[in-house]
């Protein structure tokens, strides 16, 4: 668990409590630049809590989060975003009463000052043509898959160094899920670094470089995606071994 400059994201000893409930009990992981790393686990294993804590959305009881070697533990979500890490939340959570255009504009709020929001926007509309077609439509009127694309595009508008994707396949038809995952791979090819939380183990390990399995708030298993896929231990870890 040595943290080196090659790690873009380095999380160690993370603990999260909700009152008396310990959601995360000392979990850590690393993501290197250009990687897709997936964080797997059963329902309630603490995957979303982990991401929210890393982003500063929920307070940490203990642990350390470093981005590109800089300690960002305890910073507010908006500060974390401005440092170059963002989260595409579970359930998409697009701003339903805002238009697609406005959703993307606010996604690029931090880049507007940097002056390159327009370039990124053109890139996103190119990558997700359906968003260009629906530009002036309320986000709430989009289909689930379109909303997921919007949520990803909105997250990418801040030109993050690393993006955390929380359950992008949730509630989508298999064909749509395939499309979304192709787009995630395409983002990686364009240089994005991704930490992917998924319940769909096979799909996630298919596109990931490495994987971690979270059980009862701890990392139960980790390794290269191909090895995890082959070993069959992932299913066992899913049952929990506390």
């Amino acid at each position, binding site marked *: 668990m040595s943290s080196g400059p090659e790690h873009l994201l380095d999380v160690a000893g993370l603990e999260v409590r909700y009152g008396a409930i310990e959601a995360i009990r000392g979990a850590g992981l690393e993501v290197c630049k250009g990687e897709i790393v997936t964080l797997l686990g059963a329902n309630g294993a603490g995957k979303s809590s982990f991401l929210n804590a890393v*982003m500063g*959305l929920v307070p940490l009881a203990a642990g350390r989060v470093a981005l590109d070697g800089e300690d960002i533990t305890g910073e*507010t*979500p*908006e500060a974390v*975003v*401005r440092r170059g890490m*963002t*989260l595409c*939340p579970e359930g998409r*959570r697009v*701003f*339903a*009463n*805002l238009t697609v255009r*406005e959703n993307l*504009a*606010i*996604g690029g*709020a*931090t880049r*507007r000052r940097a002056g390159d929001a327009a370039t990124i926007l053109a890139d996103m509309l190119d990558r997700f043509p359906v968003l260009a077609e629906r530009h002036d439509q309320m986000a709430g009127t989009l289909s689930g898959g379109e909303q997921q694309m919007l949520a990803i595009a*909105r*997250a990418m508008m*801040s030109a993050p160094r690393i993006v955390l994707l929380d359950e992008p396949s949730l509630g989508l038809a298999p064909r749509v899920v395939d499309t979304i995952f192709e787009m995630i791979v395409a983002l990686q090819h364009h240089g994005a670094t991704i930490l992917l939380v998924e319940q769909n183990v096979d799909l996630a390990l298919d596109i990931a470089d490495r994987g971690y399995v979270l059980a009862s708030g701890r990392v139960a298993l980790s390794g290269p995606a191909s090895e995890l896929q082959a070993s069959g231990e992932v299913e066992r870890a899913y049952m929990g071994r506390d």
Partner: protein
Amino acid sequence: MDILIQQFVNALSLGGTYALLALGLAMVFSVLGLINFAHGDLMTLTGYTMFFAIGAGLGLPLAVVLGIACATLAAVAMERVAFRPVRDANTATMLLTSLAVSTILHMLFQNLISARPRAIPVPSWMIGAVDVGGLAIGVIQLMSITATALLLIALSIFLRRSILGIAMRAAALDFPVTRLMGINANAVVATAFGLSGLLAGVAGVLWLAQRGSVDPLMGFLPVLKAFIAVVLGGLGSLAGAVVGGFALAFIEVFLRAFLPDGWLPFRESITLTLVIVLLLVRPEGLIGRRENVR
């Protein structure tokens, strides 16, 4: 027919003031989930600022500007001092905090200025009426309608075109995700309070122009009306607050104008009954969406 149009203009003018107040209340509610009962006291603050400015010989235009500026700054200060420390607390805590702020302001006004009303002289040209196609429209009414229209247009542009404006609408829908866009939560909340103060200040000037004096408790009734307007329009919806404000004014003015004499004592009860009936039919309010019902 003429009387009907006249009462329509009357309702429009009153509705403007209600709408400005309700919009300010809704703006803060939409980002914090707080009904700020100290909102009306910002109007009172505008009044006292104007009173002292006029007393210092600064003249009415400057007094108006200072009055509105003071309400705006006070709203921001109120957030910083009173509401930020309890922002993560539950709704009841925030509500009680706002009542406490209101009570403290009442005490300060009563004991440091005066419990008695203070006169704010309104120039005589404001008291006349203009003849518009046979309708006598009061100058203050006209100013009220114009100010409301201009302010609503400006706000609408701000909320649609500027990043901070879009962020405020986004924060009303989903505050945590808005922060994930790199938007500073404190900036959004402070802007919401600042705008609510600005709106209260303008509404205060219009209200004061009608009543001609300021007293410590003057903000209490307007904030209640604004609260009814906000609920009527749909809690959490900015457009709803505006519509609710106008709807309340129309109900009030038309009941007062056209109820038979024997029914007049019940006009307030009838107004509230109508509001309740509307809410029974549309629990989400006139404009609110079901998903916005909290």
